[in-house]
């Protein structure tokens, strides 16, 4: 009974949005799709590119994957999700290369890698437990927005502290830590941002309780 109440709570629209954006943010709380962020997002424009690529591929893959029936065994289902991702990649790559050819090219192998990202795999299964297609869509859209927002903020901070620039323009900050432009610094910054999100969530919780 308690579990059912929890499930209903989890499924209310406000909770879905809050969880997707903050509490269960795919990158800052869930640790999903880390590789492209750490390796490719070292500037604000690259963050925008990843956000666009991730949004297009993930949204359409999950949308089509939601029609895969649960009756199919998991062994086959998981291949189907990956296959759908690869199919979506074909028009997505043509479209994105039309609008941002250089930026997509700079992403290298991390662009096609998005077809098999951990978010798609986990969400494709999780949507079976949501009540309706509407809530499923809401969940997917806000998770993608949450991921994109976190990635853009991450790219912005990483560019400023790692290169001392904003969109390639020097902004003249007193100290630049070039390690933040490397994968090592990428992991460190991600860890620090994840910790900050927890502090914010904890503060919000305390304020609400008061």
């Amino acid at each position, binding site marked *: 009974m308690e579990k059912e109440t929890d499930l209903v709570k989890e499924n209310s629209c406000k909770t879905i949005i809050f969880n997707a954006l903050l509490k269960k943010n795919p990158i800052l709380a869930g640790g999903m799709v880390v*590789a492209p962020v750490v390796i490719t997002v070292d500037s604000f424009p690259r963050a925008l590119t990843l956000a666009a690529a991730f949004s297009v591929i993930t949204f359409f893959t999950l949308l089509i994957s939601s029609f895969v029936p649960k009756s199919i065994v998991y062994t086959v289902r998981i291949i189907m999700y990956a*296959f759908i991702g690869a199919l979506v*990649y074909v028009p997505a790559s043509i479209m994105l290369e039309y609008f941002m050819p250089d930026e997509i090219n700079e992403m290298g192998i991390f662009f096609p890698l998005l077809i098999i990202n951990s978010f798609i795999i986990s969400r494709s299964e999780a949507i079976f437990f949501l009540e309706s297609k509407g809530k499923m869509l809401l969940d997917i859209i806000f998770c993608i927005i949450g991921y994109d927002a976190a990635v853009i903020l991450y790219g912005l901070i990483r560019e400023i502290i790692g290169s001392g620039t904003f969109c390639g323009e020097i902004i003249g900050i007193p100290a630049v830590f070039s*390690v933040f432009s490397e994968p090592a610094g990428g992991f460190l910054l991600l860890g620090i941002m994840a910790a900050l999100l927890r502090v914010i969530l904890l503060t919000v919780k305390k304020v609400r309780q008061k």
Partner: protein
Amino acid sequence: MEVIKNIILTAFTSVIIENTIFSRALGTSTLIIVAKNRKNLFGFGLSVTYITAVVSVLTYFVQKIFRFDDNAYIYIPLVYILILGTVYILTLLCLWRFAVSLFVKIRKYIHVSAFNCAVLGSMLMISKYCETFTDYLVNGIGMGIGFILAVYMIAVIYDRIYSEKAPYAFRGYPLMMICIGILSMAFWGFSGHTLNY
């Protein structure tokens, strides 16, 4: 002698210098999941290595067919997924037919070890940078072993990362990212760092 030297260098590069997790961040999300359940770490690592080795050999032959097509980059991920799916299904069928006990053990996690960024990433990387069959094979195995190495290093400190002694804000995932970052810095040192004097 030259061949052996090349194999050793390629293996060292793929395991240490270009480590799957610490240098390329491939499969970090999988690492987060796997490090939690430390019972099957070695088995999981072996199945990742097996899959990367087999798919890299197949990638070599597929790459030979498609290398002259300029537009191959658009549909090549689809081909790789088909290869991955075929290897995954055939492995499960072979185990089910010839080693039932192993099949029962491995089927809980083989899907995670087959469909992750480390495996697809290794296919994409290898097809981009490798030339010879030996390069493909050694890199495929090396990337799998590099993944095992990274998973073990994180599994060793897992209890401390999730310890009550760690500040709440950093406990778990944030601290894990910071630890991977520090280890990544250490691995980065293998590629050389020169100071001006």
